[in-house]
Structure formats: C-alpha cells, structure tokens
C-alpha cells in the first residue's frame, strides 16, 4: 500500500480529489493477499472519461466475479495530481486498495483512441515500469492491451507484452486462467507468452519480425518463434444473451461524461459506411433479446439508483425490437421516473417517433450525421442518406416541436471537391429554410443549427485505408471556405483541430517504427494529447523531426493497392479483397447497399444476415 499520509496531503491540494479515492457504490475491494491473480485495469485518460466507458465496467465485474482474481482500476492522474505525486515521490496506485500498480500481476490498457498513447507511457513511468517490453524482466507485471485501437497494435508493439484482438468477454478469463496456472509454477514470462500465443485472438508482438522495402513500406512480417501464428483471428462472442453481462456497475461520486446506465443493444453494423472502422471490425451483427435487456435493465436500475438508461449500439434504429423495448422500459419504469436516451440515430420518421415516445418531457436537440455535404460524396463514403431523407425527417421533427439541430460532417473525404465542401453550407441553410418556411404559428421554439466538421482520418480495416489524408493546409483551406461563407446568426459552424487529426492519422496507420517517436514526444512533455488545450503540436513536430519520422509517409500518402499494411496479419473477419473492392467503388462513387438487402460476401463467417435476408 502507498503512503496514505502523503496521499492525504496531496488530495487536499488537487482539483476533484474524488477522482483518486475509489470507494464508489459497487466498486469491489478484495484482500490482495488472498487472491491468485491481480489485474490492474488501466484507462489511459482521466477518471471521468474512463468511468464512462462500458467495456471497463464489463471487464471489471467479469474478473472480480472470479473468487481468486481481482481487478482494480487505475486512470491517468490529472496534470495537477501528477505534479504533486512526482513532488512527493508517490507511485501510481489503484483506486480500490491504493496499492502500487507495479505490484500487480498484469496491467491491462484499453486502447480507445490513438491520442492516448503518450498517457500509456506516462502511466508506466509513474508506476516505475520501463517502457519497452524488452527492458522488463520477469519481476515486472505483464503489460497487456486491447480495445478498438488494438486492430492496429503496431505503433505500441514495442511497449506491450501481449495484445487481445477482438471482444474480451471470453478470452480475458482464458488468459487469466493460463496466467494463474503458470504463476503457480516458477514464473517464466517467455514460457507463459509462448503458451498464450496459442489462444485465439492473442498477439505477442515480440514473437514477430518485420522486413521493410527500400521505399519504407513493409516487405514481410513473420513469426520468429515456433508456434506463433502468422495470422491472428479476432475474438467474437457468438451469443450476446448468454455472454457475461454485469448486473451492476460502479456509480461514480463525481459527474462523469456519461453518468448513466449504458445497455448494449447489439454489436456489429450492416450499413457499410466506408470510413467507419467499427462498422467493419465489429461484424457480424448480433443482437441481445429484449427479454434479456429488460432483465439487465432491472438489475442495473436496482443496483445503481440511476434514472437514465442509454441504449447503445452503432445504429440504434437497426435494433429489430427497438419500439417494443423502449415501450416496455418506459411503461415499466414510468413511476420511477426513469428516462431512456438513444444515441446514434438514423434520419427517418421512425426514429423521431421513437424519440417522441422517450423524450416526453423536454425536447432536447436532435443530432444527425450526414457526414458529407453533397450526395455525390455521400455515395463515395456509402453513407446511405439522401437530401430527401434529411428534409423529410427534419420537417417531421420541426412539426413535433424540436427546434435545435446539430449536423455532423467530415472534411477531407476521398475525391472531395470544393463544391462538395460547400454542400455543408447548402444543407445547413436548407434546414434553416425548412424551419422558417413553416407558417409562423407552427414554429415552436428557438431555431438553432450547429454544423460541425471533423477532419477525416483514414483508419485500418476500412475501405478507405488506402487513402492519403489531406494536408493540414488543405483541411484549413476547406474549413475556411465553409466558415467564411456562413453568415447567419441562426447557423453556426464549428470545426475540429486539423493538427490533432494529422497526428491521429500518423498513429492510426502507423507501424513499429513509431515507438521511438512516442517515447520522444513523451520525453518532451506530451500527454493528454486528446485534450485540445493540452495538445502540443509544435512539440510533436519537433519530436517527429528528431526521430527522423516521415509524417507524409504515414498520414498523407495514398497507398498502392497491393501494399502490405502493418495490420494485415490480423484477421477481423472482413477480407482485404472485399475492402479493396469497396475502395474502388468508393472512388467510382458507387453505392453498396446495406447487408440486410443482400449479402456482399465481406468474408464474415456464420453471419446471421445470410439466413435472415437471403
């Protein structure tokens, strides 16, 4: 246990000390000397962000549910806390037992976004653990990682002993069981890793080597240890109803990003938007039954005291029994004042009817994501929304009393012209006119439209993985084109930082050679890069220069069709040949319909869509 007098001294000085105390409702504190495997779950961001992440709640309960295992939490301390900890020489500790992270058997990082990588290094440093796996002897905890960014693990491959690729509900316990068995005998990290390499979905980066071509692209990646598979298949949980789902979740004392119950409706998505990594790697589509969800809702409401349930998925309206489920939830819990919230909505009148049902009291704003301003460009990215859909849905929403609309767009999409970019203004003004063309007596509320544009980052395992990102200058030129053209106090235009998206693009499609850049950037003081006020672009550029990294090679270069990618050794179920076919169709502006309207042979095995729709 860490020095508690020092901790108290620090807690009195820092902002939001409750970030570091644990003790929340449903948190679990076991006696660490009575368990056989100690797992520290680490979310490399601040408490309020990490606690809003559903995956953490699942794995936390999954592991603690096993009598002999313990899972404790550790987050990135905020800047003020870190400063005080370094001043007092206090090492990083877990929230439950206030035990040094260094004394755990495994530390598991969840990789939710690329710009959290420097925070991983910072957590290791604060725990007095060396960065590079080759520098850690058997006395150090095993450093493992999983989550969406593990689909391209290579930029952090030198730091991590073991990656989990795909869904963690089943493989986590398989892994911990193997760990427990090996720890009983004389602990030998290398021997354990060799055995772990046989578990489906486990990737041990040290067991592979990479050869490069003269043009810096990859020539070959191959196993150097016998038994290490040449292809890593992602893990998929087959039946979500039978899958482990916690009946309680930790309830933070302080306000977090999503301070509510989150229930997963289904995994996977059939729309096939070409920019979307989640839509590709989370296939096939698998639903939870409404009965099971009602059961989960009851457990969670009783154990947390929350009053809001958020129904989460990649596209909520696709859930087959959405109307039934929301109706049941609202009827059953009406007197308990439970509200239901529904993010990720599609643009149609059905969605609005559902919303009408659940948002009985106050009509908050509506958010839609056309993603691109012109029909041509929406066809390129296969976003199946037409201007007509938008007009119908929004007119209906205005009729029903909504008046505040948010529209999300991306800038820098393949084949984009200035005309396409100006489509953002066109759509925004169209929506404004829809409101003000209604007879004055039928206009309800104060109209406000916010159009937000983010800078497109091409991601691995998407049809657009070959495409070179726009330069920062080009992004800014396009952004100002729109910004300067919008002159209306009812319409506002926001945009995201192009600098940050540029770095995100470098790491999203990065390879093993980037580890030295991460270390250099961290040494120069980069952390919390996802926080725009803490992001140090100039420092990053200096680190890039000092480590002789060519940012163009990673971010802006359009890849040849036959290039070997750093992530090609992972099999997410969807074939590379399918992604390439989709890439070509994108450039041609050819739409590909939803899987539900016919199978596109993406490569996913045992997909429900086959039986249901063919």
């Amino acid at each position, binding site marked *: 246990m860490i020095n508690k007098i020092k901790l108290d*001294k620090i807690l009195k*000085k820092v902002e939001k000390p409750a970030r570091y105390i644990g*003790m929340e409702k449903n948190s679990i504190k076991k006696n660490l000397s009575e368990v056989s495997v100690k797992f520290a779950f680490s979310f490399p961001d601040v408490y309020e962000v990490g606690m809003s992440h559903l995956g953490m709640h699942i794995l936390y309960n999954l592991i603690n549910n096993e009598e002999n295992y313990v899972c404790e939490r550790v987050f990135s301390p905020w800047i003020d806390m870190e400063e005080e900890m370094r001043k007092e020489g206090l090492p990083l500790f877990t929230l439950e037992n206030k035990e040094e992270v260094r004394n755990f058997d495994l530390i598991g990082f969840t990789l939710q976004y690329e710009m959290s990588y420097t925070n991983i290094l910072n957590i290791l440093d604060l725990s007095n653990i060396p960065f590079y796996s080759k520098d850690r002897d058997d006395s150090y905890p095993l450093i493992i990682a999983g989550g969406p960014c593990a689909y391209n693990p290579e930029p952090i491959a030198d730091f991590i002993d073991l990656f989990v690729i795909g869904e963690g509900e089943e493989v986590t316990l398989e892994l911990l069981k193997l760990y427990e068995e090996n720890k009983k005998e004389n602990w030998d990290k290398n021997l354990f890793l060799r055995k772990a390499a046989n578990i489906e979905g486990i990737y041990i980066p040290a067991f592979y080597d990479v050869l490069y071509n003269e043009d810096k692209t990859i020539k070959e990646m191959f196993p150097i240890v016998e038994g290490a598979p040449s292809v890593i298949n992602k893990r998929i949980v087959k039946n979500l109803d039978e899958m482990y789902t916690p009946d309680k979740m930790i309830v933070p004392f302080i306000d977090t990003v999503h301070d509510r119950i989150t229930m997963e409706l289904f995994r996977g998505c059939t729309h096939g938007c070409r920019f979307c990594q989640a839509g590709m790697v989370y296939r096939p589509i698998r639903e939870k039954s409404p009965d099971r969800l009602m059961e989960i809702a009851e457990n969670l409401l009783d154990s947390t005291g929350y009053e809001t349930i958020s129904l989460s998925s990649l596209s909520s309206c696709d859930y087959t029994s959405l109307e039934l489920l929301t109706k049941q939830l609202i009827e059953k819990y009406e007197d308990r004042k439970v509200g239901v919230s529904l993010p990720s909505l599609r643009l149609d009148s059905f969605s609005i009817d559902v919303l009408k049902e659940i948002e009985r009291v106050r009509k908050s704003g509506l958010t839609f994501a056309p993603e691109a301003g012109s029909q041509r460009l929406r066809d390129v990215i296969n976003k199946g929304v037409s201007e007509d859909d938008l007009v119908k849905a929004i007119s209906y929403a205005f009729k029903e009393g909504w008046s505040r609309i948010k529209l999300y767009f991306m800038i820098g999409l393949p084949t984009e012209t200035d005309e396409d970019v100006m489509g953002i203004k066109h759509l925004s003004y169209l929506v404004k006119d829809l409101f003000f063309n209604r007879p004055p007596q039928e206009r309800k509320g104060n109209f406000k439209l916010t159009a937000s544009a983010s800078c497109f980052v091409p991601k691995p395992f998407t049809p657009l993985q070959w495409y070179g990102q726009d330069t920062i200058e080009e992004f800014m030129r396009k952004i100002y084109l729109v910004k300067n053209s919008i002159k209306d106090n009812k319409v506002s235009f926001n945009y995201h930082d192009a600098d940050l998206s540029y770095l995100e693009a470098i790491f999203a499609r990065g390879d093993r050679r980037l580890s030295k850049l991460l270390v250099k950037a961290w040494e120069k003081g980069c952390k919390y890069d996802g926080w725009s006020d803490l992001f140090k672009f100039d420092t990053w550029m200096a680190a890039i220069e000092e480590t002789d990294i060519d940012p163009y090679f990673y971010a802006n270069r359009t890849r040849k069709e036959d290039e070997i990618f750093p992530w090609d050794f992972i099999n997410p179920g969807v074939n590379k040949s399918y992604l390439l076919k989709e890439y070509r169709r994108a450039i041609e502006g050819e739409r590909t319909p939803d899987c539900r309207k016919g199978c596109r042979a993406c490569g996913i095995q045992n997909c429900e869509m086959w039986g249901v729709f063919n």
Partner: protein
Amino acid sequence: MIFRAVFTKKNYLRYISHLDMVRLFHRTFNMAMIPIKYSEGFNPHPKFSIGNPLSLGVESEEEYMDIEMNKEMDIDEFIERMNKALPEDIQILRAASLEKAPAVSSMIEWSFYELKFMTESEIDLNELSRILQLWLEKDQILMKKMKKKGKGKIEVDVDIKPLIGNLVVKEKDEDGFIVLNSLLKSGEHGNLKPINFLETMERDLFIGIDLESIMLKRLGQYAQENSQIYKPL
C-alpha cells in the same frame, strides 16, 4: 412529513463535494426505494436538503439532512434500507419523523470540530494550552478576509472572537498529530471555517503548524436557544 437524519462522512469520502453528496443521496433514495416527495415541473427533483454543507476534505461524525416524505415509513426500516445502499463511510446514525420543525439548515448555529496538525518542531502541550488561552483572552482576534468591493476584492480584518465558542488542547496522537477540539460558529447566521481559524492562529502565534498536514473533522452540530446549545436531533 419530514424525516430528519444524522449521518457520517468519513475517511476518503471527505473528498466528495457537497454537490456530489446531493447526487449520491438522490441515487440512494432510488436504490433504497424511499417514498420521497418530488418537486413539480419539467424536471422533477427529489425534495431533501443537507443542512450546513461541509467543506471538501473535512470529515464528519454528524451531518444533518431533512427529507420530505411522500408516505409514512418505519424509521428503522428507513435507516436499514438507506445504510444498505450507502457506502460504508457515509451511514445514517439516527433519524426521526417530525411533524413540524424549522429547516435544519436554519437551526444550526455551532459546529464542534477536531483539528489535527503536525508542527515544524516539537511543542509542549501545556505550553500550547497556555499560549492559546492568552490568545483567546485578547479583546479582538483579527482574521484577514477577502471582501468584494466594486469589481475587485480587497483584504479586510474581521474580528472572529465572537465566532469562537471554545478551544481545548486534547493530545498528541500516535502519528504525531497535535489534536485540538473547538466549537466554532457555523451555518447561515455566521460561519468560521476551521481552516481559516487555524491559519489565523498560526499567523498570530507562530506555533509552527504545517498547514499542509491539517486534518479536520466535524464532531457535532448544535442549535442555540438563549445560552443553551443543543443537537437538532
């Protein structure tokens, strides 16, 4: 009908802010299925109030809360259900149903504190007692306070002597902390924060208090009638 409850706030939970406490109780009422009254309107919220909010970082043995109930409920069952849903360091000690009573927040006049701190050098407890006694016998004890003036703030001297009820040197505990007890004016009708009290003590007397080491705990809260003080429950 009003339920008045007394609860603790101990150990690490002293780092939970007043606003977070309100949210915690709100959820606890839900979990424990307490028939609490809700306000009317678009965004109904449960009707309860915590009297005399505690500063962040201060522990308490005795916090007060008034809850407006929708239905009658057995007090013991109320306590049991609440304590099951509450964290172990925030627990209801006692509660009572009141037909009519002024709000607890308007009743509280005094708080009794435990003040703990380390000193830069060894200090004799008898000597400390003597110094503090002399200090309290002064006509005025002035505290620096920032006061709004126009757009800015200015520093003014405030006499805190009437806000001090008593002050006793208790002991030096096993961790080496000097422990004092003190009754200080508290609540809506005048308030002296224990931390400001200690800062003023140090500024006047140079005891050598390590201000970073200070640990505070509220031991009790009192209402006052004439010269008598009494607990609101």
